[in-house]
Every structure is written in C-alpha cells, then in structure tokens.
C-alpha cells in the first residue's frame, strides 16, 4: 500500500512539475515571434489554463506526501540520523516548510490567475507562479534524492 502511494505521489509530482514549469516559463518572457524553438513552444502556452490544474495537483500531491510522512518519520529519518546524515534531514525539513507555505499560497495564486486577468496584477501572478515553481522543484528533487539515498551515497 505504501509503495503504491509513493508511486502515485511521484507521478502526481511529475505532472505538477510539468504544469508549473510551463506556466513559470510562459510568464518569464513572452514567446518570440518568428522563431519557434523548443523553448518557445514550451513557454508559448495559455498560462491561465494551468492555474486550476496546478492548484489541484499541488493539493493532492501534498496530501499524498502528508500520508507518506509518518513512514518517513518512523523509518527513514532515524536511519538518516544513524548514518549521521544531518544535511539530508535538513533538506527534507525545508521541503516540509515550502510545501506548507505553498499550500497557503494557493488561494492567492488562484485568485490572481482567474480570468479576466487584471493588467495591474501581472507582477503578483509572476511572483507567485515562480515562488510555487521553486517550491515544487525543490520538493521534487529532495523527494527523489531521499527516496534513493541508499543507492546514491557510498
């Protein structure tokens, strides 16, 4: 059961990572006219269409992480402490904080992305999107590294 939940959590995280990265790059700079590179195609998306999926995926992925957390706290964290790997616990602690703060940001993020998009709120949309993108990337990388840490470390 816990393995199935871990896999579902990872797959949802991949979907979230894709959605927030598309949106973050799309608000970073408008796609160049004339040129149509991979990056242009990647960011040349309807940014607002990603807002609701990001809210749903972030929430569901965080709930999955919260359900997995007791297993981490009981089995993984003590093992990391036995390995004297304080930094690994530190990066996970930061992940915990970023996910919690990110959950709290979702209501504001969602209101700023609701159509019609106000021209005076473009900065807030960009800032919140990038903030959430940083949280998601950090959480994704930390989650995967810790999941595989026994194989990654000598």
């Amino acid at each position: 059961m816990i393995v199935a939940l871990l896999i579902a959590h990872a797959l949802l995280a991949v979907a979230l990572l894709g959605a927030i990265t598309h949106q973050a790059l799309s608000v970073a700079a408008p796609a160049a006219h004339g040129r149509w590179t991979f990056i242009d195609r990647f960011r040349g998306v309807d940014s607002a269409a990603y807002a609701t999926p990001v809210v749903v995926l972030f929430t569901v992925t965080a709930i999955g992480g919260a359900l997995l957390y007791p297993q981490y706290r009981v089995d993984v964290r003590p093992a990391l402490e036995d390995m004297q790997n304080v930094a690994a616990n530190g990066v996970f602690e930061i992940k915990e904080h970023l996910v919690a703060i990110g959950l709290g940001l979702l209501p504001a993020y969602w209101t700023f992305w609701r159509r019609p998009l106000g021209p005076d709120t473009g900065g807030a949309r960009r800032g919140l999107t990038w903030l959430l993108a940083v949280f998601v990337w950090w959480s994704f990388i930390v989650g995967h590294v810790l999941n595989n840490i026994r194989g990654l470390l000598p």
Partner: protein
Amino acid sequence: MTDARLRIFSILFGIFYVVAFYYDLALFRYYPEVSQFHWLRTDGLGVVILWYGWIATSALASAAISFAVPAGMAERFWPGWAWIIPTAVVVGTLIYERRWFV
C-alpha cells in the same frame, strides 16, 4: 470569501506557519508509532509529528484574521505583497534552517 480576503489569508498563512513552527504552536500532535492524535505533548508514545498541527494552527489563525479584516482595507491591499511577503518568509526560514548544514 472574497478574492481580497483569500489573498490576505495567503499572505498571513506563511507568517503564522513560521511562528507556529518556531514557537512550537502545533494545534495538535500526531504520534505515528501508535497512530494517535493528541492536543498536548504526550510523552512515551514515540516520535511525534508536529507538521500537521503547524499547518492547522496557521490555517485557523490566518482564516480568522482574513475574515476579521474590514472589506475596504482588504481591497486596498497592494497585490505585490502577495508574493513579496511570502518570499521574505521563505528567506527567513532558510536562514533559520542553515542550522542543519553548519
């Protein structure tokens, strides 16, 4: 809840979360080894998870204040604060969490 109140909720949530975390103000505690929730610290039940309780504390506190703020004041709030204040909260948190890496 109006858009303005939701934005205030989001701004306050991060602040209350950090306060709850720093001062150990978890609304409740979860003891995973015995699968029990407790309002207060209960010794002898193994490791404790405070994270759920910190989130609950900050959600309740920020919801209460965002409801209490007068509508006019909420509407006048500059939208930029919605990402600048949480960014400052994150920077403060990262500075505090340096303790794991020194």
